[in-house]
């Protein structure tokens, strides 16, 4: 490896690092905030890692707010039905437009 190769490799890593931090940090922040307790989540300046790991938010989501599973079920139903209907229709139409000649396409 000559000097130029090393320089360009370092540039590539720098670009990768900057863009990945932009893309992944918000997700890290979401997870970490979920693991903080309520007091710490609203603290300023914010803490980058929870001082006190707490699963309280998840517990209240699953136990106190039983609606979560209803919503989850709704989500599942909507995606399942959409996928099923789309697949069936797309298979017919795709077959018609792809495998036959002289059709309306």
């Amino acid at each position, binding site marked *: 490896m000559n000097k130029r190769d090393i320089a360009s490799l370092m540039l590539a890593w720098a670009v990768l690092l900057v863009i*990945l931090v932009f893309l992944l940090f*918000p*997700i890290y922040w*979401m997870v970490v905030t979920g693991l903080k307790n309520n007091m710490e989540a609203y603290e300023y300046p914010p803490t980058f890692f929870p001082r006190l790991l707490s699963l309280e938010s998840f517990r209240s989501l699953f136990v106190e707010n039983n609606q979560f599973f209803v919503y989850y079920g709704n989500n599942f139903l909507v995606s399942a039905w959409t996928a099923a209907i789309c697949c069936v229709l797309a298979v017919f139409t795709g077959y018609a437009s792809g495998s036959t000649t002289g*059709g309306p396409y």
Partner: protein
Amino acid sequence: MKRSISGKQGDALYSFVLTIPALLLAIIFILVPIADSIIKSFLRYGVKNIISGKPGVWNNGANYAKLVSSGMLPNAVRNTLWFVAFVILFQFLLGMALALVLNAKAMRGARLFRSLMMMPWVVPTVISALIWMWLFQPQYGLVKYLVALLSGGTVTSLAVLNNPQTALGGVAVAALWKQIPLMTLLLLAGLQNVPAEIVEAAIIDGAGPIRRFFHVTMPYMSSVIKVTISMSIIENYKQFPLFWTMTGGGPDGATTTLAILSYREAFVSMNLGSGAAVTTLWMVLMIVTISLYDKVFRTPDLT
């Protein structure tokens, strides 16, 4: 298929029959509502008409005239175009940079990074809006803290989404975050289709990396680039959930795009005719943009 129908005709009939369900759905759920909306845009049609079932009254394009004269429509068109241009420019630059880096031979762990970087794409749009609202939060948000830290304490208050000058930019950042992964993935697929022999030939002919990029890679990728950019033009033209969750069109109409304006007119001001007028113009603008784009960027055929 009956034997009596000749092969070609039979095929045509068969494929037509297979298309009927999709065709019916398209007519019922796409064409009819569009026609209905265009008709409604010329009527005075409010919530009263829905409740009482009375048909709307033709009002000679008063909906359009009001939208233009109140300055709401020009403002929304300006915001929409600004947003689309900004997001697509940076999305393309960053997506291309990331794709080139991930495609480099010397890059180790490219596969791992490729799957990691897809994460924002999987996050639902509303959730990504909430994440960025949390980051931009004016009292205890992380962005405010980081800016204060980096500026050495000179900037003490930063409310990205509450300031008319920066709100649109704030939403654009969230849109970029959400859309860069897919752009990168598609560009990466395009990069992998650039034939290695041609690149090698260019190296032997003494072309440097910059010339190789612009004269070999880019021409081979032009069709992929064209498709991805037109996809993201459409995606950003119709962007609604991000705006609605993050700013609701405010502050002071600074982030009111055509999507927000039509929703506000139709379901907040309860004036369905006016909302339909926005939608119609929006559709026309989108068609004009896409066909202009199609005309300007004719891709050369390299195969």
